């Protein structure tokens, strides 16, 4: 009986999943919300997310340098893809913000988009969360060790049919000390494996930094477009004071509402920072945890849908972050224009009323 190609592939995948379940199950992963410190330099901690973000920056700078150093008039290969991606994003920005504002917003928005995108996709590479530095402790993974040249190496051994998961010592176990002694007698090492690389956006600091950059960019665009008068969006007490001095209750009441709305605007700006930060952090951290857990539960094949999902989430989150920055920038510029228009309208109304 001839087996079809599809059946062969399906059978192979099932065999692979079973083999993975038998031989590739590690110990229960340790999940840390805080980025792990690789090394401290005085008050500054070098974390694995910082290291990864530097790598991301180096990758992006290298790509841009190589792509802009020599350009073929008719692009091919990677240059074609690079140009198509930039062109598509540029067209999107211009279609939303118009030619003038689009050109102004594009560098910041595109940098945010591509930084977040490369960070998210890079963290799907195999060495993330699996290669790290070992810190000896009384609990954690039980690892074998060997000296390879000047560098001592430790590793979590593969599982086997007799032991379907890697060894680890839980801090809360009653016999944790006995397990530790047993492991040491066997020449093994117990400790935490601190990953050298970790997705930058799984550290709350990176999304927060990006959100602050985004907020600064938005406010500076608004100030550049509307001048210092943009501050009236947040601190609009003029009408209230005028009503107070003229003892005009109606004007005072309207002014108080304007002032309150200004305060709400200020709060919304701050809340926007928080929402920006936690949206990206939450999505990426959850994605990392899901992949870690599924690699622990079903190491091969069944994890693949989540890799696909993370590819999708990675680009969607980068897109959302960048486009929200763009939209908030447009709103800030347009808000001021509308506000200025309203003021002018009010002044015109006042002039007409006085003439009447």
């Amino acid at each position: 009986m001839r087996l079809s190609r599809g059946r062969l592939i399906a059978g192979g995948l099932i065999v692979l999943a079973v083999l993975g379940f038998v031989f590739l199950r590690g110990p229960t992963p340790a999940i840390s919300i805080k980025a792990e410190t690789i090394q401290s330099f005085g008050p500054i901690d070098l974390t694995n997310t910082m290291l990864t973000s530097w790598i991301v920056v180096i990758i992006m700078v290298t790509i841009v340098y190589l792509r802009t150093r020599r350009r073929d008039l008719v692009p091919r290969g990677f240059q074609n893809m690079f140009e198509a991606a930039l062109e598509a994003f540029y067209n999107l920005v211009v279609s939303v913000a118009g030619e003038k504002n689009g050109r102004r917003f594009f560098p910041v928005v595109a940098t945010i988009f591509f930084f977040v995108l490369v960070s998210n996709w890079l963290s799907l590479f195999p060495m993330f969360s699996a290669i790290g530095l070992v810190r000896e402790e009384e609990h954690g993974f039980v690892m074998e060790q060997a000296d390879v040249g000047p560098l001592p190496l430790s590793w979590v051994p593969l599982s086997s049919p007799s032991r379907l998961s890697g060894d680890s010592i839980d801090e809360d176990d009653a016999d944790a000390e006995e397990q530790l002694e047993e492991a040491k007698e066997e020449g093994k090492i117990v400790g935490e494996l601190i990953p050298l690389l970790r997705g930058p956006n799984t550290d709350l600091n990176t999304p927060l930094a990006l959100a602050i950059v985004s907020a600064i960019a938005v406010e500076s665009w608004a100030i550049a477009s509307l001048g210092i008068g943009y501050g009236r969006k947040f601190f609009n007490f003029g009408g209230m004071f005028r009503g107070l001095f003229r003892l005009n209750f109606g004007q005072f009441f309207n002014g108080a509402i304007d002032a309150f709305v200004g305060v709400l605007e200020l709060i919304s700006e701050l809340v926007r920072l928080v929402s920006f930060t936690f949206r990206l952090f939450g999505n990426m951290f959850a994605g990392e945890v899901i992949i870690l857990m599924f690699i622990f539960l079903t190491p091969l094949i069944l994890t693949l849908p989540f890799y696909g999902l993370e590819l999708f989430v990675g680009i969607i989150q980068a897109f959302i972050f960048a486009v929200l920055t763009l939209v908030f920038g447009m709103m800030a510029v347009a808000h001021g224009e509308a506000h200025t228009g309203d003021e002018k309208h009010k002044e015109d109304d006042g002039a007409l009323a006085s003439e009447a």
Partner: protein
Amino acid sequence: MVFLAEGGIGALGFNLPSLIAQFINFTILLILVGWASKRFLFPLLDERRKRIQEGLEASEEAKKRLAQTETETAAELEKARQEGQGLIGQAQQMSARIQEEARQTARAEGETLLERARSEIQLERDAAIADLRREFADLTITAAERVIRRSLDRKAHQELIEEVLAEAPQGGDGKDGQT
């Protein structure tokens, strides 16, 4: 590795099962993404490349056509300029010829007029000389009458004078008038 030891980190570690699993999963993902790219993304990129290529070729073609048109236009202009120059030359020649003809006609007419004027002057002069001669004869007779205080035969004297004058040399050199 001193700094690692100080921080309590002693070795480079691998979560071997996780690393291998991630590696295999990632490889399969790459194959799937590569297949999807080949199926969906690369045709779009090829289309984009083709569009750029065609655009550039069309632009080159348009440039060539423009250059060719410019050359042709320049040649036509040069030809027209030369024709114009020829026409101007012919017109100048014709003008010169007409001027010369007009000049010659005017000169001939002038000479004719001059000749006629001269003839008329000559006739007038001859008439004037004849009148002068008559007047002179009369005066001479009158003078002779007064000198000799007597009346002579006027007719005979007139004939005599006429005869003398006829013997005198003819001409308009002015010397006759002075004698």
